[in-house]
């Protein structure tokens, strides 16, 4: 399993943190830092994910567990308009 400690800053946009549906629901409308909110989205395979930046920059003590999330390769959903 790949975690934050395994990647460099230059790889932040290549990976995302994998969430369960329950974890995703708990992050909705919650701040990971002052004036910065979690934004779980779904990837190409409908996994719920957050960015590495949200994991690294999280200072909200209620959600520090996001730093332990397993990382997967980011595969964006195709645009509905293209």
């Amino acid at each position, binding site marked *: 399993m790949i975690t934050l400690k395994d990647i460099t800053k230059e790889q932040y946009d290549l990976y995302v943190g994998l969430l369960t549906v329950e974890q995703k629901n708990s992050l909705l409308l919650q701040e990971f830092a002052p*004036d910065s909110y979690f*934004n779980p*989205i779904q990837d190409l395979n409908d996994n719920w994910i957050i*960015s590495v*930046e949200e994991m690294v920059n999280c200072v909200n003590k209620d959600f520090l567990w996001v730093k332990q999330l397993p990382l997967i390769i980011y595969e*964006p959903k195709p645009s509905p308009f293209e």
Partner: protein
Amino acid sequence: MIIGNAISVCDLRKKGSVPTDADAQAFITATGITGTNATATNQLVVDLKAANIWTKMKAVYPLVGGSATTHKFNLLNPADTNGAFRLVFAGGVTHSSTGVLFGGVNGWADTFMNMSTNFTAYDIHLSANINSDWVGTLEQGHIGAMTSTSVNNRLSAPTSITENSYFPRSSPAISKAVTSTTHKGFWCGSRTANNVHNFIGPNGVINSETSIVTGSQANVTMGLGCRRGTTNDFYSGFGYSFFSAGNGLTTTELTALKTAVNNFQTTLGRL
């Protein structure tokens, strides 16, 4: 005390600068910025007013101070409310003294400015100052919104690294693209009539389009750092140091806005 912990009129005069503009002071007080951040912001307001652009603005985001808490404020109305078009950042966004870096995955900012209620179809400008490049495989949205291929008004970067586009697109579909050696710099798309579209890029050249384009604005709030829609996509990986949105600008006003923004970034040392 009008200055709080920010900057005083006396300090500015001692440095041979201009007195603090009242609108700039409101922003300085709200953000708590000091020193060069404050003097540069004051000069930006003075320059926009001198060019008669200020009254055409609905939102100006100078992105100074280095944190989400200072970057969120609208220079036009620095109240911490949705009604003042204060930004709410979500997802992977990194804040620093250079501005905001959207991470290219899910980072964006909501302006709370509904495009259909705040803009008419043919009177709008959208601008963004980019200060770090990014290479991606998908288009990336800078500012605006799109709810269908026929309701589409935004600035974005296509997959090519050297091109940015302005989409005043409704029906028939058009876009104006400017090729540049870099994405870094000031970009602005504007329309002042259904057949008057102007687009300026970092090289300062005005590209004009006279096709008649009809249509409407998207009935969603304008987003920064993504293609805002009923579902957001095309999240941007670029770094930004300025955004603005407002009424359409003439070619002279486009150039004046570019000059004011460039001077602002130069003073802050973050071009």
